[in-house]
């Protein structure tokens, strides 16, 4: 269990996160949604251990995150930042292989290579493995980095609790790849019991792939529950400031969300 308890982060006079509590269980996909500037990325950074909380605590299985060795932490969780970019011409396979850095002590290069090949196939970038990252398109780069974070915590046999923190993993992807990446996350949660937290902007993606949805707005947790619960109330429309209508299609598991043009949400 990766838990954030009563997290508050302030920057000068503004409060980025105000008493937010979220927990991520192994094997679940938690989508974090909310308007721009709601504090989604800040929450992810705090839970990744990048940013200390001004109040509250992040714990991995009840151990405070600041007491966990950084290398051990890297074996427990992988983080996909919004934009990983480098002007150095690494090849895609070299980028993915970097994900194996926390496992150097095992010294099993063959295993590392197998994992690189496997996650590349999973993310559909096998053909690009020998291309330089600087020549790839934005979407291909994003998938390469996604493969890198998968490689970092790839351990099909392990019972160790592991977590994947994704900050807008689909921002540069076409519609098919958006579904592809999130369905990989979904499968990992089910098959390897990895806890996945993903910041997503597309409400329908959140509704389709998430077990639970956390709605943040102005640094506060407005709503946390199943997609069905979160999207059935008016909270969502209020938070985004636009009318969001819900359509339930028989035979389709998740609600479909449609925004209404030029319609202000009820204040």
């Amino acid at each position: 269990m990766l838990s954030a308890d009563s997290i508050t982060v302030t920057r000068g006079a503004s409060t980025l996160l105000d008493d937010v509590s979220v927990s991520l269980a192994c094997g679940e996909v938690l989508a974090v949604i909310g308007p721009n500037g709601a504090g989604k990325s800040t929450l992810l950074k705090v839970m990744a251990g990048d940013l200390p909380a001004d109040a509250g605590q992040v714990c991995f299985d009840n151990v405070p995150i600041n007491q966990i060795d950084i290398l051990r932490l890297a074996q427990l969780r992988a983080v996909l930042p919004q934009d990983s970019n480098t002007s150095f011409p690494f090849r895609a396979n070299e980028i993915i292989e970097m994900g194996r850095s926390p496992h150097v002590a095992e010294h099993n290069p063959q295993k590392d290579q197998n994992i690189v090949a496997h996650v590349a196939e999973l993310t559909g970038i096998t053909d690009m493995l020998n291309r330089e990252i600087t020549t790839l398109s934005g979407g291909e780069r994003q998938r390469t980095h996604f493969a890198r974070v998968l490689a970092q915590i790839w351990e099909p046999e392990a019972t160790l609790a592991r977590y994947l923190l994704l900050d807008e993993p689909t921002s540069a992807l076409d519609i098919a790849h958006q579904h592809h990446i999130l369905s990989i996350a979904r499968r990992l949660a089910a098959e390897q019991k990895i806890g996945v937290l993903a910041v997503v902007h597309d409400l329908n993606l959140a509704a389709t792939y998430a077990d639970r949805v956390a709605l943040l707005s102005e640094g506060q947790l407005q709503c946390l529950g199943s997609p069905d619960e979160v999207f059935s109330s008016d909270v969502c429309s209020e938070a985004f400031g636009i009318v969001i209508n819900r359509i339930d299609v028989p035979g389709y598991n998740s609600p479909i969300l449609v925004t209404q043009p030029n319609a202000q949400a009820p204040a």
Partner: protein
Amino acid sequence: MSASLPRESNARAKAPLRQPLHARLRELLHWRVNRDQHFWLIGVLAVTLLAVTIIALGVGPVVIEPLQVVAIALNSVGVTSAQELVTTFTPQQEAVLLSIRAPRVALGILVGAGLAVAGATLQGLFRNPLADPTLIGVSSGAAFSAVAVIVLGSTVLSGLTDVLGSATLPVAAFAGGVVTTIIVFRIGTRAGYTDAATVLLAGIAINAIASAGIGLLTYIADDEQLRTLTFWTMGSLGGTTWSRFSGAAPFILLAIVLVPLYARALNALLLGEAETRHLGFDLQPLKRHLILLVAMAVGASVAVTGIIGFIGLVVPHLLRLIVGPDYRSLLPGAMLLGAVLLLAADLVSRTIVAPAELPIGIITSVIGGPFFIWLLMRRNKRVFL
């Protein structure tokens, strides 16, 4: 820490927490032999270095043929029949080689390798292929404190020279390098993360301040000090003795040996500092160690040779074109190529206007300056020449 993690986490209790030294060494070796297609390059560079070394040892007012160089070398390591086995040489040739050229060439190899490694390391730290010890002010900081010791050593700073004796100059240059690096880094760092652009701009400012200081000291220096000063600011391997060599060697060697152990961390740094942390590297100590190693290599180099620019910029860049950016391939090649280039530049510096010598810094800058411009144009994908 593992003890306080709960049951399920102990599945991995066997894996050591720190990346142990032997694992890092083993990995470096493994990469070289198995995975890397560039093994041949290391071989070519090593042979080139050997060839340039033999030429550098032989060229000068007293000519020593390559075979004679080999014979003298064998003789000096105890092969008494070297003269019969290889070829004959005169005692004068032997004396010139062993006490004049050998220390100079040895220092050239070490400084070339050290500057190349320092440049490659800085480029990783700043995620910028244009970082170089001279650009971010490490070299000028080291030169400033060296010049201060030269000019003020017998007056204002006499307390310092009394304590440190002949080590004052290298120690001062080293300290100057460390202090400027720390200042530049502090200016560029916010909330634990370092902004490369700010660091480079801070380097320009530090360069300006240091050269103002050097200018002031030049103004109050006497004639003899002035000649020594010129040497510092333009760089030279001239007059190298074994004692000068051994003063700088430990520092440079330590940097050359230790930096490759950070190869994976440097790779991660090229992705970004947050990514480096996510991959399990402790960012602050990592950056501190690397800065210290760079300052050590550059400070010690500047202490014995003055400012030699652009080696740290040109060498890693040329190698990246061939072996790619992976530091595990880059660093060994950079050491060899750095040594080759510096030896070649020194060879030019002492033959082009013989019997006089041109400061080596002029030669590396004449080659490095246009190269830098070419890099900038290539980056902007604008070719207007």
